[in-house]
């Protein structure tokens, strides 16, 4: 177990190192940062001085090393637009993004697992068809369109729910549904196929033969075994949710990291972009590390691989 943990941890650190390199490289691609950061009417001499002072004349690898050391200390430089440290700006917005992603995940799990189970247990009935069709539509529907349509119906037509901003639970409903729908569809389909597979196993037949009646077979014997792939996909889907929050936050003016980074890109505020990409990716890596460790408790066979 210790070896497994150590290996998994080393792997995550390696991934984070790679992430930091790519994040740094994005800024390197912008060309001459001096021209972006300085006012356009600066003299050639000023530009040279600024480059020397900021270390832009150093070799690539030295610049990357400096960036990495800074990143480890939470220092991504000052936001060009807000004049505050980029790290602080992003960290301030993290709770909003976590709230939205968490709510979306909750919506997805609450809808998808029951729907998937019912679909599998009542296979080829009207319920199954409805859930399958809805899942298929959910998987094909672009998030941003769904968000706009929800605003059209619930905010514009019926004036039931607010269309923008963050505050109480009412503000959370539309964005959470918008962000969660794709994940709902994914998990529904996965639960259905997982349950179908498990329900056809011998031990389920044995349980039934021993006289265990309908619902307990499903809950106790089948769901436990179908749960493993669902737990994995929850880890992966969290990445989808964190990424998807970029668009959902833009539509609903949700004050999270996603919206901040889209605005930062429009404003060419690259330190903020770097901090946002780095921190969101790190969150995702961390969550997947936790999921993997949890996993070994659910299925001890994995440790042995």
């Amino acid at each position, binding site marked *: 177990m210790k070896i497994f943990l150590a290996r998994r941890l080393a792997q995550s650190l390696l*991934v984070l190192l*790679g992430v930091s390199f790519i994040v740094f490289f994005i800024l390197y691609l912008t060309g001459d940062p001096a021209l972006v950061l300085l006012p356009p009417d600066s003299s050639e001499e000023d530009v040279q001085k600024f480059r020397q002072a900021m270390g832009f004349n150093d070799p690539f690898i030295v610049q990357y090393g400096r960036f990495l050391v800074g990143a480890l200390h939470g220092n991504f430089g000052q936001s060009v637009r807000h004049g505050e440290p980029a790290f602080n700006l992003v960290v301030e917005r993290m709770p909003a993004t976590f709230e939205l992603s968490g709510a979306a995940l909750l919506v997805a799990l609450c809808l998808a697992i029951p729907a998937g189970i019912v679909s599998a247990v009542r296979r080829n009935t009207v319920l199954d068809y409805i859930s399958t069709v809805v899942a298929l539509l959910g998987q094909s529907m672009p998030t941003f369109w769904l968000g706009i349509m929800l605003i059209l119906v619930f905010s*514009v037509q019926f004036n039931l729910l607010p269309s923008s901003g963050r505050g109480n639970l009412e503000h959370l409903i539309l964005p959470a549904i918008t962000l969660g729908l794709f994940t709902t569809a994914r998990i529904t389909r996965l639960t259905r196929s997982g349950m179908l597979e498990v329900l056809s196993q011998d031990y389920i037949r044995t349980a039934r033969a021993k006289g265990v009646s309908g619902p307990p077979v499903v809950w106790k014997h089948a769901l436990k075994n179908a749960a493993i792939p669902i737990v994995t996909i929850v880890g992966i889907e969290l990445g989808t949710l964190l*990424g*998807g929050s*970029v668009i959902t936050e833009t539509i609903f003016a949700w004050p999270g990291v996603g919206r901040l980074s*889209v605005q930062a890109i429009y404003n060419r505020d690259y330190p903020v972009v770097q901090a946002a990409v780095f921190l969101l990716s790190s969150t*995702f890596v961390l969550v997947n590390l936790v999921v993997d460790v949890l996993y070994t408790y659910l299925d001890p066979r994995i440790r042995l691989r």
Partner: protein
Amino acid sequence: MDLAGASSPTRREWIVFARRLARRRTALFGLVVVMVVIVSALGAPWLSAYDPVEQDITNRLRPPGALDAAGRAHLLGTDHLGRDILVRMIFGARPALMVGFAAVAISGVLGMGVGLISGYFGGRIDDVFMRLADIQLAFPFILLAIAVIGVLGPSLPVIIVVIGVSSWVVYARVVRGAVLSLREREFVQAAHALGSRDGRVLVRHILPNAFTPWLVVATLDMARVIVIESALSFLGLGVQPPTPTWGGMLADGRVYISTAWWLATFPGLAILVTVLGINLFGDGLRDTLDPRLKL
């Protein structure tokens, strides 16, 4: 000696696949939808009664079915600059499909290459590629895409390359999985015994057999890429106006959501229907070619 015939799906088997696929009505329906979208994208200039970019302010924001000042009908209405929505929707299929096909081609070829090499040679190379895959997957994809496109500036080639280069992982994993089991199969051993070099074994014997799962992934990935393309143009980081894009039309329509619902509704439906068609076809393809493939 040519052993490929003994190992990879032959033409006759493909015909059998096609027949089985044709029996799945949902897959067939998906295929028809996709064909309609492709044909309208190709034939856009001939199918359209109006110019997709020419503005006509006197006829702005006409509701669906309304006649304009000249007495011409606009089936799905006009937008805030008086342009016909249906025509722009038809033209909007072009960037979507172009990005879809080109990006899938890039990531498909990259992923196929990585998967073949990783699975066949194993060891260090495999480790390196799989760690690279982990790094790639650690990024919230859309955020990475908008960051890079924001830096390089939005243009069709940049969008295609960014999406293409960052989507290889699924292909690589599926192909690698297939190669791992193929590597031990008798026909591969036989090819080795007959003196075939690694390169030849990979290309002639392993690749054709890893092709079916790859094809399924490519089909379903096309749906994802089209959604990403429209998401990018929705954020203003796609193909630039006045060229019509589904995402761009949606972004325009969002402003008028309380007064002119049709602006945002129809381009979204175009995305939904296209992506649904591809998903239905892809699901059918998977169930026919490789039912055990988990995607």
